[in-house]
């Protein structure tokens, strides 16, 4: 089994499992369903439909329906941590709506279903659109009261193709129902200092597109009792700018100022959304607890939502590609 997923709730749970079946000419994905009261129970039920014992040792991805994730998510994952055969490096994602179509889409794929979603999520991570989490690293955050999860949020696109919609925001162990868009996810990764291989940001500057790629990012945190300032020094490589003429200093400074203001404004929007969701996905609580423990509150999610958090972005374009 390379892919599994849950929908429903403890007591009335449905799980789907996808496994590859190879014939002499092709490989197809077989989907089986189980129903039961708990994740282990549904697996047992699913085993009634296959000719052999299900093996989750090559599990690549776990999908959880958004309604299910509104419950304590650990209830659905405990069995995976407890079993030494279960890989704890699998990817996790929250899906919008029914789970089954996400499994059906992999039926005609040449790779295994789990690998498909694994590559899909890894690509989002490499582009800094989602925070890189595995089952294990997510579990650490689930048990951590000074940081919250933000997992990839997938929806079924119009052409029956899974689409990354953004990041599902958790408060404590439960999905809040609030999400960040993919663009906001990129900014969250900058704030979180968890950049992937390529981080690109695009804006319209004087009706002309401008896309920059982050070359280097340096984050600091200035923490006081009820205010946190996040100074960010971002070095950009220009990826796209048809207006050109950046060799002129004043033009470059103008563009840098534009990017700085736009990014700062959008980051404030991201922080506002995080505070509304009571989701400290940036992990500010960890820094407050470590370096200013007297200002750390045990109910950190609540306290986080009342803090005055302001990003201060300093932008510099350091490269312009092979064009001026």
């Amino acid at each position, binding site marked *: 089994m390379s892919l599994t997923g849950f929908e429903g709730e403890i007591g009335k749970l449905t799980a789907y499992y996808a496994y590859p079946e190879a014939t002499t000419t092709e490989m197809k994905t077989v989907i089986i369903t189980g129903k039961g009261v708990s994740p282990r129970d549904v697996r047992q039920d699913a085993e009634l439909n296959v000719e052999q014992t299900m093996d989750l*040792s*090559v599990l690549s991805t776990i999908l959880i329906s958004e309604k299910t994730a509104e419950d304590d998510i650990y209830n659905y994952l405990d069995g995976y*941590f407890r079993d*030494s*055969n279960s*890989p*704890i*490096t699998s990817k996790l994602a929250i899906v919008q709506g029914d789970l089954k179509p996400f499994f059906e889409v992999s039926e005609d794929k040449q790779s295994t279903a789990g690998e498909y979603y694994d590559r899909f999520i890894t690509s989002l991570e490499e582009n800094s659109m989602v925070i890189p989490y*595995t089952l*294990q*690293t997510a*579990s*650490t*955050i*689930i*048990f*951590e*009261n000074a940081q919250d999860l933000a997992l990839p949020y997938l929806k079924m696109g119009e052409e029956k193709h899974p689409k990354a919609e953004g990041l599902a925001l958790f408060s404590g162990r439960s999905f809040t129902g609030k999400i960040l868009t993919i663009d906001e996810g990129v900014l969250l990764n900058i704030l979180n200092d968890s950049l992937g291989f390529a981080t690109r940001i695009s804006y319209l500057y004087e009706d002309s597109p401008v896309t920059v790629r982050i070359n280097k990012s340096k984050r600091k945190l200035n923490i006081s009792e009820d205010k946190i300032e996040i100074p960010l020094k971002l070095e950009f490589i220009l990826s796209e700018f048809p207006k050109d003429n950046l060799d002129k200093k004043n033009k470059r400074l103008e563009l840098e100022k534009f990017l700085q203001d736009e990014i700062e404004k959008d980051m404030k929007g991201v922080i506002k959304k995080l505070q509304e969701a009571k989701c400290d996905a940036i*992990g500010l609580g*960890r*820094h407050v*607890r*470590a*370096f200013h*423990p007297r200002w750390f509150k045990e109910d950190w999610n609540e306290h986080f939502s009342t803090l005055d958090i302001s990003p201060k972005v300093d932008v510099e374009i350091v490269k312009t590609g092979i064009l001026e």
Partner: protein
Amino acid sequence: MTIQLTKVQLFLLMFVMQTGFVYTSFQNMVIEHSKRDATIQFLVVAVIFFMQLLFFERMHKYFFLNKFTKALYLIYWTSYIIVFVVYITYVLTTWVFPNTPESVLIAIFLSVCLYASISRPETAINIGVVLIPMLLLFLLFMFLTVKNLSVTNLLPFFYDRSNTWFMGFIFSTYAFGGAEMYIVLRKYLAKSEKMPKKALAIYFIILTSFYLLSITFTLMFFSLEELKLIPEPILYILHSVEVTFVKRLDLFFVYIWLSWSLVTIVNYVLVIRVVYFENKIKYPKVKLLIFFIVVGGTANVMFRFSILEFLKQNLVYGVIAFSFLLPILIIVINKLRGRTVSDSVKSS
């Protein structure tokens, strides 16, 4: 049975005996009580251990075992081995061989130990060398998890003290269990060998760094609440390492730890042989066979999660008594009486 050790052999034996039993698990018990102060508490206990090593080196001529203390140590070391056999079997059945009966695992495990123990003493003394590359590999793969470590987990110090905070010091002593081996084996050091303080300091730094690394990695990798559920944090950290060439890298490390454990038991048995077979005895191989049958039989009977938990929580008091307090008491009494090792040799 008499042996002659070089400085390096002595420290190698010490290192294996001081790490083999608890390296993958004691962090959990320390951090459960001391929380983020675990590193500080561990270092305090480490300094005490170093001072004790210096004390042992200075006073080693006053340390010898009479029949009563020999019997006490025999019971202690045998119990220590039994608890460890129960523990390693438990770990093997949960991590690698869930369907193999524990009695079979114990029998295979102890057969190898018996074979190594009835061989020439040099085998048991030098067998630890094979572990060195394995341990380096162990460390190398632990470092692959660096990107998942959170430095902020190490702080703040002295802030979140629980009622059982002091127990962190107690459980830290697990890391230095086997310290008595230094003074027990010191008299077997070759006459030509000198033991400068620098050598003791180097050994202390290597051992302390090795353990400190495991505690800091555990603290940085897991959240405190999560750690309460993880009895073998080091194995779990390695379980989370993903490489392209093998799916379950952790199995490889469980086997390394298994070899490490085998060597540790063989070394403990070597010390038992040295202490109890000091004068030539009849049928040493049969006696060793009986010893391993007793160990295996008892471990088999005690193989219960609840018993193991009880032992893990309480064996540490045996460590404090036999590794730290009893050797000091023996030295003090002999010093007061003015009796030295050479006196005891003459009288025997």
